[in-house]
């Protein structure tokens, strides 16, 4: 009788293991996106006409052209890291731990700086501080004749200036979250034992959050040295070559793949070293988050000191947001930058870039298409990898996870160099197509997708899936009915997190685009190269507007959706 009941309860099914297929597809995607291009890069750095050679590496470390680029990148990274620390930490402390007025405004400053396209800032500051035509320089010369208070943007300090606003948000974000997660009881127990506020801050709070701050600084460093746009716009006129711009130059005709590969690998080594240091610091941070039972951190009453601190925050806003965006807006509305502003107002630049310059529309469409596809693909792939890693006992699943994080250590231009070398070796004519840009974006932003999926899956207790299985649901049905709906909020956030950088991607696109596969950021860069100051400003603002619209839309949709948290 029980046998009959059991047979009725479980009709025999055809064994189609959807989970195996999804897992297999994820592995194949990782191999094509990351493993094979990287191997091509390695191969390119040691392959000679006849056999193997270390000659490319030898030339890279002995020729001034190349080691100078490494040195410049390190200098830029170090200064940027230092200033990011000096800006990020006070801002984070002010927002999380003090009664500073306008804390929301400080938060907004950090968020906007993070979201701004880095090349946009560089272009804006050229308009303000180029040695002769920069309006502020011109103003200073006029106001103080005989004294030279001008600032030449085409210099290392100039490069640091336009890079820091993109790097300090990393320090800010990590420091703020660490400060917020330090359980107030740690500090209260120091105080009850007789330590004063300052003593408590220095002996309890600071050691607890220091690893997070250092980790943030290192991420800022890694991101700063990878930015092609600002280093080309500011660095090239100043004859300051950095790793991305030097690698870029090596792809000029005739391309020197061997040298480019060797230099790329050195760049990767530098990035990976910084990131492993960062991981080590972050691992030490775990004891902060473990305790977090949502206790309210104490807020320090600043008294009269709140105004200097507020002034500091306002200065950051001025430099990172107001000056660049204000000047770009002004330039984009001028017939010719530098002439009497109010008499020269025009919308002609917008009309030009949107309707006459035939590249723009195609570039906007391409960028929208690429960013949406890449965001979807990297989140989907991330979900598959995260699921395999966290929910199966598959052999080698940790390897899968590691490989998917490899792109964190690959600067955009290196990713592009690797993809070019791999696809040129295959008979598939991908080079110069939208497809190769799509692959580059997918690979670059895959770690964001994996992270979003991991966060989501860690919040979903496996029993929620198991209970669907025992009720008779197949893997596919469980995914559709339980897992994916529960992951939706996090995956959507991950999608936006990929979309925003993808729509402004320049570092990889600059090596991969063709006139057919033009993207917005490349169009901006090309226009700038050709000296169209005013239309460039208009197009850069259009790019920023697309980002703003995407985020607005995300908040609308994301806010409306019911993001359920599991029991």
């Amino acid at each position, binding site marked *: 009788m*029980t*046998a009959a*009941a*059991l047979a*009725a*309860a*479980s009709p025999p*099914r055809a064994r189609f293991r959807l989970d195996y297929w999804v897992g297999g597809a994820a592995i194949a995607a990782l191999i094509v996106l990351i493993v094979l291009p990287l191997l091509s890069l390695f191969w390119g750095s040691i392959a000679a006409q006849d056999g193997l050679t270390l000659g490319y590496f030898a030339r890279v470390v002995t020729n001034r052209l190349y080691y100078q680029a490494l040195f410049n990148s390190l200098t830029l990274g170090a200064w940027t890291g230092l200033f990011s620390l000096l800006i990020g930490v006070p801002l984070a402390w002010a927002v999380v731990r003090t009664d500073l007025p306008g804390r929301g405004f400080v938060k907004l400053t950090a968020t906007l700086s993070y979201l701004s396209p880095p090349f946009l800032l560089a272009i804006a500051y050229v308009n303000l501080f180029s040695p002769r035509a920069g309006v502020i320089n011109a103003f200073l010369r006029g106001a103080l004749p005989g004294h030279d208070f001008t600032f030449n943007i085409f210099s290392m300090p100039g490069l640091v200036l336009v890079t820091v606003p993109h790097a300090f948000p990393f320090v800010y974000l990590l420091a703020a979250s660490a400060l917020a997660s330090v359980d107030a009881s740690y500090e209260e127990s120091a105080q009850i034992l007789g330590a004063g506020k300052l003593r408590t801050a220095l002996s309890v709070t600071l050691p607890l959050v220091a690893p997070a701050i250092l980790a943030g600084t290192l991420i800022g460093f890694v991101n700063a040295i990878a930015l092609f746009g600002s280093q080309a716009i500011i660095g090239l006129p100043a004859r300051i070559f950095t790793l991305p711009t030097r690698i870029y130059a090596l792809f000029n005709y005739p391309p020197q793949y061997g040298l480019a590969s060797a230099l790329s690998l050195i760049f990767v080594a530098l990035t990976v070293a910084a990131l492993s240091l960062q991981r080590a610091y972050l691992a030490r941070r775990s004891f902060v988050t473990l305790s977090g039972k949502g206790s309210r951190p104490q807020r320090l009453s600043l008294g009269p000191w709140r105004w200097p601190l507020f002034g500091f925050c306002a200065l950051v806003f001025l430099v990172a947001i107001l000056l660049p965006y204000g000047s770009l807006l002004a330039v984009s509305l001028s017939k010719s930058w530098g002439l009497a502003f109010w008499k020269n107002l025009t919308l002609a630049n917008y009309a030009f870039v949107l309707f006459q310059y035939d590249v723009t529309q195609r570039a906007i469409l391409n960028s929208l298409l690429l960013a949406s596809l890449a965001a979807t693909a990297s989140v989907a792939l991330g979900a598959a990898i995260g699921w395999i890693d966290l929910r199966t006992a598959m052999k080698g699943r940790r390897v899968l996870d590691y490989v998917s994080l490899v792109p964190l250590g690959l600067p955009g231009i290196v990713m592009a160099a690797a993809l070019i070398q791999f696809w040129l070796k295959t008979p598939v004519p991908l080079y110069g197509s939208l497809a190769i840009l799509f692959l580059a974006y997918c690979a670059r932003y895959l770690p964001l997708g994996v992270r979003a999926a991991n966060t989501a899956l860690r919040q979903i*207790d496996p*029993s*929620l899936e*198991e*209970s*669907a*299985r*025992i*009720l*008779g*649901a*197949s893997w596919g*049905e469980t995914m559709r*009915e*339980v897992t994916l*709906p*529960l992951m939706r909020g996090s995956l959507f956030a991950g999608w936006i997190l990929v979309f925003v950088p993808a729509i402004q991607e320049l570092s990889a696109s600059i090596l991969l685009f063709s006139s057919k596969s033009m993207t917005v950021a490349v169009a901006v860069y090309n226009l700038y190269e050709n000296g169209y100051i005013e239309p460039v400003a208009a197009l850069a603002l259009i790019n920023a507007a697309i980002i703003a619209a995407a985020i607005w839309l995300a908040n609308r949709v994301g806010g409306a959706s*019911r993001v*359920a*948290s*599991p*029991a």
Partner: protein
Amino acid sequence: MAQIEIEHLTKRYHGGEAANAAVADLSLAIEAGAFVTLLGPSGCGKTTTLRLIAGYLTPDAGSIAVAGRVLSSPQSVLPPEERGMGMVFQNYAVWPHKTVFENVVFGLKIRRVAAAEARTRVARMLDLVNLSGLESRYPGELSGGQQQRVALARSLVVEPTILLLDEPLSNLDAKLRERMRMELKQLQRRTGITFVYVTHDQAEALALSDRIAVMHQGRLQQYGTPREVYRRPANRVVADFMGLVNLFPAEIRQNGAGLVVTAGPLELALDLPPGMGAGDKVDLAIRPESIRLKAPQGAGEPGLRGLIEEHTYLGNLTEYVVALGPLRLRVQAGPELDLAPGSEALLSIDAARCKVFGGRE
């Protein structure tokens, strides 16, 4: 024939040695319609056993057969979704993004039950677990007890022949736990479904089960009715786990015609397991309720005299720690007896209800 037959089941994690296997050589037969509890401290392998029965895990050795058909063996494991069982999880595992109705109807949808029939079956089941009227609520709006009942209804609505329950009451507060305990028992009787229930709470196991499988360090220690397991524990591990017990190192001695067990000033004549003889070192187990305490009427009254060291008033009874030579005995007495620490008490021990366990060096 038993409904579930587990034979020589072994499961190791991380390729460890057999010595620290999560489940080691477990054999168990569970009858159809029985309420069987896997009982033991955390880490004893009871949840692993349950997950093996459900098909979430692959055994390293042994097999699990249901109704004569082998479902799990190291070679092949029928996936959970094809076993037609139900499972209730410790954390309820009620889907937070589905309403009560959507949660309960899920298994019927998977089985392609017609919508109208599904609706009546869900309604009937919600009625059975006293959740009628809450169909459109989300789990976040329900109490823990209500969520647990949603989980039960969700498992039962598909009419499984076997329901697996993994510490389903441990997240509820004491009062609710007791009420749900009764409801579970009634539900099992009414539906006739085989319940395999995992808990670390011996009181819960005693109250609910037809049979209890006591597990320790991956091994089955004893399998029997609640009465057997409590009154005649198979070894000191079971005796120690099933409620309060006084355990003393003791020795068997010849006393005239018979053998007695001695520990300190105690000398008890009791039924010894076969094979024990004078000179054997053993453990003596005395349950607190097998000891009677009373206040001595006079200095000369004969009997075993102990000294009250501590007393703890628990309302319905009072617990004493009584010093008897080098021994410290925990004794429970009714509320009418009130002995102050430092006073003397007379003890009488029901030797028939004491147990000895061998195997001590």
